[in-house]
């Protein structure tokens, strides 16, 4: 019998923010600074990371996942500086990450894939079968768990990706465009899952769909050209827009208003 609560669950937190960035700069390639002086503090909850294409959302998420090293500034996860520690293992054990275009092994079954990821994430060996089953059930793939990945539809593959991200019960969950390829019904189910996860996890969801944010996020982070434009609740974002700004919903109008004010968009799109 596994205990429902462990000492680690009830221990007090020793940090104020799960994610804290100060003057964070992350370089992509040799010259481009995709995240350029970002100040951001995120705690438990579901945070929607909004921004136009090319705003640096993916780069920011990769830096938060410790795949990219910050070029300058400070990035703290769980109160520990990422650039300071030589050993990222302890941090990475508490992170779940779904890349935008995540590759997988086509010949693996869903269960084998999630099991393999659990092994890579150093989930204790005895806990792996139960953790995998739980993750697969949470994304509604239990009936497909023993099917090979290549037989799945795009939406199911994405759900398998979400399953591998949550298999280690992460304290910080980073999802890059997770709703791409989901049909409307799946998207609704996914929003419920996001709300559920956001209760005890710091979830960062990057998206360019404003309605996803409205439905599932407790907090909006608006991001353009590598800088923070706005952080606050969806209501405040909606209030920022007036009828003169383009958009079909108050949130969309608020989004265009804030982006228009920061006025750093390149090109006509």
């Amino acid at each position: 019998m596994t205990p429902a609560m462990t000492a680690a669950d009830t221990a007090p937190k020793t940090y104020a923010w799960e994610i804290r960035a100060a003057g964070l700069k992350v370089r992509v390639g040799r010259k481009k600074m995709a995240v350029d002086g970002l100040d951001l503090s995120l705690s438990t909850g579901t945070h929607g990371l909004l921004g136009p294409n090319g705003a640096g959302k993916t780069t920011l998420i990769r830096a938060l996942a410790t795949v990219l090293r910050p070029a300058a500034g400070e990035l703290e996860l769980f109160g520990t500086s990422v650039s300071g520690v030589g050993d990222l293992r302890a941090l990475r054990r508490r992170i779940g990450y779904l890349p935008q275009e995540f590759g997988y092994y086509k010949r693996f079954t869903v269960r084998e894939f999630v099991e393999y990821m659990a092994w890579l994430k150093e989930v204790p060996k005895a806990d792996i079968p139960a953790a995998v089953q739980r993750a697969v059930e949470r994304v509604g793939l239990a009936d497909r768990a023993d099917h090979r990945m290549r037989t799945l539809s795009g939406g199911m593959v994405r759900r398998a990706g979400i399953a591998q991200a949550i298999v280690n019960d992460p304290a910080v969950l980073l999802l890059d465009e997770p709703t791409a390829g989901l049909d409307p019904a799946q998207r609704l189910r996914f929003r419920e899952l996001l709300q559920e996860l956001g209760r005890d996890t710091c979830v960062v969801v990057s998206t360019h769909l404003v309605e996803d944010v409205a439905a599932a996020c407790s907090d909006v982070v608006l991001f353009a050209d590598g800088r923070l434009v706005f952080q606050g609740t969806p209501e405040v974002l909606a209030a920022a827009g007036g009828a003169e700004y383009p958009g079909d919903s108050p949130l969309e109008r608020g989004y265009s208003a804030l982006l228009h004010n920061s006025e750093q968009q390149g090109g006509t799109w």
Partner: protein
Amino acid sequence: MSTEHASRRLIDDYARGDAAMAADTLWALEAHLETCAPCRSRLAASVATEAPGIATLVDTVRAGLAPQLDAAVQAPSRRYRPRWVSAWLTPILVPWLAMTATVTLLALLLAAAGAPMLFGAASPVLLIAPVLPMCGVAVAWSRALDPAYELTAATPRAGLPLLLRRTVSVLAVVLPALLVEGWLTGAMTAAQWLLPSLAFTSAALALGSVVGVTRAAAALVVAWGVVIAAPAWHAGRVPVVLQPDQLPVWGALLVLGIGAVIARRRAYPAL
């Protein structure tokens, strides 16, 4: 976990469902019961004596469910590969290893057919043997070839231990294949290529901590091909660096490479 156990009175109260129990006591007791098998068995005994109603209820439910439980068979999970295989090999490595085995087999057949006369003393297998294991390591840790590279790179296990694991499994397949090959054809002795191939592998790992393993291996293959293999091929003789008297140099390079890998071990998680 404290080694204190719950008192008999507390467990009896809990079994009766005593509403007067303080919430914090209840919580502490349940947390303890979850982790303590002896106290759970005492609770079971206590339920039988203190709360016969519950015991009969549980028995009734069990009697009702028993036929269904007997009929239910746990579906065996379909599994195409044992767990240890994925721990040591990535799926992309399997085709590569199969290809290497095929190539060495073909070379073996060529040699058996009397082709060495065409190549002179420098057997082509001998010229590629020193860099072949290193290529396998590069394949095992390649961003371009491994679809799950991005996922793997963000996990705690990514880094030197995983890289070494995959290196070991590549060497475990490629080295015996080359050994058998050399022994059967007589075109090369293990002394000629074994130490160089290990030295190249360690050099690729060491340089890999700076520029990435794939790039390091590619650079070393090009260097080997241009500086040593092509001239030797052209001249039709065994290159000087693969003569047995050069072994101490290769040994020194291997030690240097291993030393560099150990010194740079912290740099690998960030690859």
